[in-house]
């Protein structure tokens, strides 16, 4: 049986192979998505982001168990950074995600970001499409540990959870920009530690002062994922946000935004692909790099020259 037929048949090995192809095989990626994309769009997408060591994997693990108690099937994508020097990666999120290892309705996949900026891998949205098309009810995406930027997760999630710890306190000011703005739910994890209450109230103040585009103001929750404390409240808030999205076309608006962002990302991907191809065919890029280095031409003008030389995007 061919791979996609096995996938549609519910074969988990086929799901794994499909995700690998979406990650590695630029030539066939688009062909696979032709088949899978129309089947996706049904799953609830929850993004979890926050600084390294905040407890994203542990939270994902606990959340997964809770979702399973509700009978919802779960797919998790956990992203860790690729070394820009060796191209290798140590993917350790699975270490803390073994609560449902023997549950066939839970699928956990580790992904290296392959030096893609933004906190996710270029292939993360594609892997989400695969899990969605496979029939998972909920998809949890866990970003690499991030600070102030790396906000891609909000462009692929219906609900974004920003996870902080009491130790994140000093950086609240910086976090007002960026990370704070993508939060639909704010979680102070490791709330058993000193300073958690004060930090949570400070966060609440920041939220109250902020201007929020929509009429959903992110709740601030205190959680200790390790001890399963506060998880019920988080679960309720995630449901509440789900209900909020379902009303008044909010979800439609988000999906539209996701679609636009996906196209923009794909455009970038195509351009980079064309550029790589071109580099193999001729030496324009090398030649222009030398001229830029000698200050004979400035980079923007060089880029324009390359762009003008490309015959459109079709191919």
């Amino acid at each position, binding site marked *: 049986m*061919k*791979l*996609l037929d096995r996938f549609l048949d519910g074969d*988990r*090995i086929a799901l*794994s*192979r499909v*995700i*690998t*192809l979406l*990650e*590695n095989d630029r030539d*066939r990626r688009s*062909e*696979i998505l032709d088949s899978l994309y129309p089947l996706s769009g049904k799953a609830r997408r929850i993004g979890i982001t926050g600084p390294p060591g905040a407890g994203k994997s542990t939270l994902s693990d606990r959340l997964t168990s809770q979702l399973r108690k509700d009978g919802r099937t779960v797919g998790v994508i956990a992203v860790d950074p*690729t*070394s820009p020097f*060796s*191209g*290798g*990666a*140590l*993917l*350790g999120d*699975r*270490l803390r995600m*073994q609560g449902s*290892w*023997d549950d066939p309705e839970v*699928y*956990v*996949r*580790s992904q*290296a970001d392959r030096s893609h900026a933004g906190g996710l891998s270029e292939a993360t949205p594609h892997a989400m499409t695969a899990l969605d098309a496979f029939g998972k009810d909920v998809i949890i995406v866990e970003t690499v540990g991030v600070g102030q930027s790396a906000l891609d997760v909000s462009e692929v999630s219906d609900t974004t959870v920003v996870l902080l710890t009491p130790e994140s306190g000093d950086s609240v000011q910086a976090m007002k920009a960026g990370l704070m703005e993508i939060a639909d739910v704010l979680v102070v994890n490791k709330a058993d530690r000193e300073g958690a209450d004060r930090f949570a109230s400070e966060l609440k103040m920041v939220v109250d002062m902020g201007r929020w585009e929509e009429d959903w103001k992110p709740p601030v929750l205190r959680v200790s994922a390790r001890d399963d404390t506060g998880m019920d409240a988080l679960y309720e808030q995630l449901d509440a946000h789900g209900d909020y999205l379902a009303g008044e076309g909010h979800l439609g608006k988000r999906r539209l935004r996701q679609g636009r962002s996906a196209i923009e990302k794909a455009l970038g991907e195509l351009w980079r692909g064309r550029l790589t191809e071109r580099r193999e065919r001729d030496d324009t890029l090398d030649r222009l790099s030398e001229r830029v280095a000698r200050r004979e031409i400035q980079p923007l003008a060089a880029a324009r020259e390359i762009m003008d030389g490309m015959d459109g995007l079709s191919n």
Partner: protein
Amino acid sequence: MAENIRVLVAKPGLDGHDRGAKVVASALRDAGMEVIYTGLRQTPEMIVEAAIQEDVDVVALSILSGAHMTIFPRVMNLLREKGVHHMLLTGGGIIPRTDAEELAALGVGTLFGPGTSTRDIIAYIQEEVDRRRVEDEI
């Protein structure tokens, strides 16, 4: 040469000596591989489940407890039962040569003992993955 090689490094059994596994995991990462590290006290069932979900090319087990004649065959059988045939099952630990030969007859790859250079392990994995990778018909 095969790119984006994925390796599952796991430590089955009850002994807590994971230094070797960590050293190998780091070396493979530095060789450009994507290493999924699942840590201590993994059962064969957990290992095979993780290997399938992560679609790894290689399952590498560190066994120092003497349980290698139980664990390697069990993992090998589980992989086959689930229909996984392309993955390389390899590993390291204190494993007598006669045992390693017996395991090789079951389809287990080369097992590396103390004092092995990580360079040899890397070269072995690269060669095996080059040979084993299959192109799926979509």
